[in-house]
């Protein structure tokens, strides 16, 4: 009876909507770096000034994820760079000029704004002193120093216009070339742990860390003019907004954007405030910033985080326990089931999210934002293994005399499972659910990669801005939630595990 109550309670908890924010009229996306977030905020504030409800999904996982989200209609607009479009997104099409690019995008139902006014191209950066000592001013000069340690952002390592193309063009002798998180790379460069990193020409950190940008003497890097990509139907849906949007074309010059980047990254001003100030000073557009206290942010992130956890963990429990029972009953099938859920565990989070986006969209479900089905499905998959494994183990480890006693009584198989085997295995099963819950709470921080918020959001922003306070704002509540969950499970054990199993044998 208790277990039926638990199952019904879980179902109810998984289904009740806690928050039902309607889809905004305009959904804006941005990439994981400050400049993109600022541009997204500028678009968001512009929408506000036109009385259009907008939501800005900040710091989404990567170019592919954003472009797919745009094509699928999960977002309506996001800032992009012309070089990225030609070299990366539409790399297979060998687009020769802007005209061809425009047409290729048009075919996909996507429009492109006029350039915003700055070119943020890739560059290789070295510490000014190191570069001076070695006499390096151009990328070609690197060839004379094979001992240099090169560290590039993971996206740069993979992109056709990044490391693969650059290496071909310049024929580098260096052996020590690795991928590394971009923000970490700056710090490692400053600490003298690495020698050369990739950088963006509008990056605020160039001046802060006193870096020298190496001249691209063989003209490898294409132009990266900042533009906005938007769904072609946006002009019909929001004509006034699109009209306003045109005003910012050509208005953001390189010094302007570098100053804005620097205000956020070095002075700690929020992207929203920077965007508001820009619109006020350059275009005379006034918008309001809602104050956002730490407490309010934590409450919001907690709600988002719990939403991800309950929507993924509860269905995982309800699916994994029957799978575990099946695996225990049929060892051959059990091997296949355990291997499958085990393999899922090894897929990196971002890869899993990108893989899941298309099927989720085909089903007509929202793949981005809060309640992102993509994030929920990914977390669901990550939660299966401990529960399936513990259920199967718990059932298999029941001692043969007890199993046979139940058979000898004349209980049919289903009754044996319900009355004897599951209660006997319940401590092991519950331990599996507890492990899954703690893993799930940790993994749910990946929701931030896909706009679902949660504690991952401040962590992601904190890493980007090198702000320990922000990282802790996400990490501490996440740890507290994991501990709280542990505690709740200890309590639940007292209630759910039969009393007789918690006793020590008397003799």
């Amino acid at each position: 009876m208790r277990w039926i109550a638990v199952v019904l309670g879980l179902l109810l908890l998984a289904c009740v909507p806690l928050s039902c924010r309607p889809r905004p009229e305009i959904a804006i996306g941005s990439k994981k770096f400050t400049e993109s977030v600022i541009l997204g905020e500028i678009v968001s504030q512009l929408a506000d000034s036109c009385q259009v409800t907008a939501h800005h999904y900040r710091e989404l996982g990567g170019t592919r994820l954003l472009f797919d989200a745009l094509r699928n209609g999960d977002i309506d607009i996001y800032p992009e760079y012309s070089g990225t479009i030609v070299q990366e997104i539409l790399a297979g099409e060998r687009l020769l000029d802007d005209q061809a690019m425009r047409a290729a995008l048009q075919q996909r139902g996507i429009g492109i704004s006029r350039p915003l006014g700055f070119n943020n191209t890739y560059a290789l950066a070295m510490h000014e002193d190191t570069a001076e000592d070695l006499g390096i001013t151009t990328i070609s000069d690197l060839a004379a120093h094979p001992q240099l340690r090169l560290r590039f952002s993971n996206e740069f390592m993979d992109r056709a216009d990044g490391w693969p193309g650059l290496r071909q063009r310049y024929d580098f002798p260096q052996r020590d070339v690795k991928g590394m998180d971009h923000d970490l790379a700056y710090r490692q460069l400053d600490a003298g742990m690495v020698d050369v990193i990739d950088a963006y020409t509008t990056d605020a950190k160039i001046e802060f860390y006193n870096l020298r940008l190496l001249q691209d003497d063989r003209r490898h890097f294409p132009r990266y003019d900042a533009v906005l990509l938007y769904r072609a139907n946006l002009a019909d849906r929001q004509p006034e907004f699109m009209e306003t949007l045109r005003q910012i074309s050509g208005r953001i010059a390189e010094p302007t954007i570098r100053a804005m980047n620097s205000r956020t990254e070095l002075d700690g001003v929020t992207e929203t405030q920077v965007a508001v100030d820009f619109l006020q000073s350059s275009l005379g557009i006034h918008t309001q910033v809602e104050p956002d206290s730490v407490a309010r942010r934590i409450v919001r992130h907690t709600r988002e985080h719990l939403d991800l956890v309950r929507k993924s963990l509860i269905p995982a429990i309800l699916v994994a326990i029957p799978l575990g029972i099946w695996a225990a009953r049929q060892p051959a099938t059990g091997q296949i089931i355990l291997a499958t859920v085990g393999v899922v565990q090894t897929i990196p989070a971002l890869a899993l999210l990108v893989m899941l986006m298309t099927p989720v969209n085909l089903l007509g479900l929202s793949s981005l934002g809060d309640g992102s089905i993509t994030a929920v499905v990914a977390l669901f998959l990550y939660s299966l293994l401990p529960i399936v494994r513990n259920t199967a183990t718990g059932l298999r480890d029941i001692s043969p005399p007890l199993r046979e006693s139940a058979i000898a009584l004349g209980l049919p198989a289903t009754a044996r499972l319900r009355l004897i085997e599951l209660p006997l295995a319940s401590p092991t099963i519950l331990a599996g659910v507890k492990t899954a819950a703690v893993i799930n709470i940790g993994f749910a921080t990946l929701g931030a990669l896909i706009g679902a918020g949660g504690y991952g959001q401040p962590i992601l922003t904190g890493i980007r801005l090198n702000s320990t306070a922000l990282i802790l704002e996400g990490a501490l509540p996440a740890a507290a939630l994991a501990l709280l969950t542990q505690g709740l499970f200890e309590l639940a054990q007292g209630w759910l595990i039969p009393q007789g199993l918690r006793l020590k044998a008397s003799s």
Partner: protein
Amino acid sequence: MFELVEISKRYGDRQALHPTSLRLASGTTYAIVGPSGCGKSTLLRLMIGLISPDSGHILFENKPLSEHNVQVLRHQIGLVIQEGGLFPHLTARANVTLMAGYLGWPADRIERRVRQVAELTQFPQDGLERYPAQLSGGQRQRTSLMRALMLDPDLLLLDEPLGALDPLTRFQLQTELRDIFRQLQKTVVLVTHDMGEAAYLGDSLILLREGRMVQQGTIDELLDRPADPFVSSFLHAHRSPLEEREA
């Protein structure tokens, strides 16, 4: 009422039981004895369908035991194993009443029957609400016996029921078991490796060795007309402390 016809069982290379036939008459207590690995537990497990024979068949009240009727037949058979096989998550009462409850007996009928079997096995009333872990070894075996008797079965199977008990408890329970068997007049099959216990409790003794039945008969028959030197040596293979003092 229970008949085994030429049944045999093989585990891999080992012939655990050679073709064996056995008729169990109503109201008789049979004690199956023999050294470890002689096939006595195999024989018992075959009777309740935990394993199925490689050849031969089993008749229960003239009906052959099959996959279809084994579930119902098990309700007419009570089993007690070494250490009781009690479910640790259930109280003594819940262990005893599990099947009756599952079969939908009314509460008052269950209550009456529990009182009867508790009285019969001299199980203390207040022990019924305890969990197996809170009971002594002897009480656990009494509980297991109550569970086996709950549905008033025609056949009672006991597999080394006193094997894990200390000598005093064992001695006392042997006395009580004999009273219970006499009172109930049920068909009982007791598996033991203790010749003294077999002789004390069994009306008919069945001696097994390496998967074959060596002899069946009363203790007098076995003592007076052993079928084989092994019968005599097995009957005498036990020590008494009194012997030591006399020697």
